């Protein structure tokens, strides 16, 4: 798709807000690989992962009005939405934890992320271009920090669950996560 080079995420989102299905198709072609990869990492079952991916685009289509174009950060919004949706599905399927009933309000409040308007726009192409830099920043973290970050982001564990699973105090987990993410940010910025 040559148009991908021209049309920005923000322009696509403008079109989706006007219910342009071509724009949604374009967005699907652009984002489905990374979203699917992320979902598969959280939910290994292929069928479930496909369902979650479909759900993401249905949410996007149904609730595109919720997306504020002023921040122009579709990439971050989609990634966090996919992560939240996949984790929610994983927990519901496992029935290990009781979650509130999945309703429209729950979706709006918990699943759909509130993205800060104060960050610079991030596009997929930019993220892919900076992959190595990010990898370098990640590699500078300690193994324990990386492990905790992965448990939180991909396994969908809360700080309390991580603490009980690793059999360490909750305060330790909290500080580990704070330090890990702060360091990751510093490493990434300093790598520029």
């Amino acid at each position, binding site marked *: 798709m040559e148009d991908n080079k021209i049309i920005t995420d923000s322009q696509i989102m403008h079109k989706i807000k006007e219910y342009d299905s071509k724009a949604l198709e374009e967005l699907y072609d652009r984002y489905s690989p990374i979203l699917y990869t992320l979902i598969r990492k959280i939910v290994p079952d292929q069928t479930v992962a496909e369902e979650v991916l479909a759900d993401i685009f249905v949410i996007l289509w149904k609730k595109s009005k919720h997306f504020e174009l002023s921040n122009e950060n579709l990439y971050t919004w989609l*990634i*966090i939405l996919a992560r939240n949706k996949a984790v929610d599905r994983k927990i519901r399927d496992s029935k290990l934890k009781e979650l509130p009933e999945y309703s429209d309000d729950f979706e709006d409040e918990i699943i759909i992320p509130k993205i800060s308007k104060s960050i610079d726009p991030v596009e997929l192409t930019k993220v892919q271009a900076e992959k190595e830099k990010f990898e370098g920043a990640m590699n500078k973290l300690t193994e324990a920090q990386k492990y905790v970050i992965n448990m939180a*982001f991909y396994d969908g564990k809360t700080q309390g669950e991580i603490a009980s699973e690793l059999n360490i105090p909750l305060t330790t987990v909290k500080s580990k996560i704070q330090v890990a993410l702060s360091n990751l940010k510093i490493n*990434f910025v300093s790598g520029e």
Partner: protein
Amino acid sequence: MSGLQVKDLLQAKALGCLDPEEDEIFIKCTNEDENFPWKEYGSYQKIVSCMPALLEIEIPDQEVKDKVSKILYDLNEKLTSEEKSVKEDESDEGIVIEELEEDKDVESQEIPNLKEVAAEKKDMADSISFKKRKASEIPLPGFENLNKETFTTQTDKPKKKPPVSIVKKEFKEKPVKNYSSKIPVGENLDGRNKNKLFLIAAVTFLLITLFLLIFIYFKFSSDIESNKNEIENLKRQISSEVINDKVYSNNFSNA
């Protein structure tokens, strides 16, 4: 919650690992706290969103794309039917309101009369209990299933805008118009009756024509037959006269 405490939660929230209680507090802060550190929170969101870029990319099957489009198509179908039912409800609502307003007028005319009667006949007043009819009690032909609740909710609340159809172009299938239902039933019946009458008239005309033809045929054939007989008689008569004449002439000549 103080600024320091919220700041402590930023990283965990960006990673999505806050415990429910803290998550609740955080959401409250994002909604209410004017000094919420959005910039810092955004920087962590940005960092976290870069994490999947490190994964080995897996491309979903083409079937998933078809599945997504099918889901969206079904969703559109559902919304279109909902939109249709909302429109139908609104048009029904209009009729119900009109009819109830008419009934209301009738009721308001009847009330003073009954009150007058009640005032005149004080003895009977106690026994008379004027029960004002409720909207739900008024029989409305064709609206038997409409109860008070649905009526009140329909009229009290501001008219809901029909849900906007969210799928356009490829995903949106144009609803097939039911033209037959739009044709007024009366007109339809008139047309059918006209056709029937025309058919009956044509058949009657044909039967009469056939009857006349048969009649004419028999009439003519009997006339022809009688004429033939008459001719035959005449022929016989003539021939007998000729023979008589001959015999007479022979006798005369012999004589």
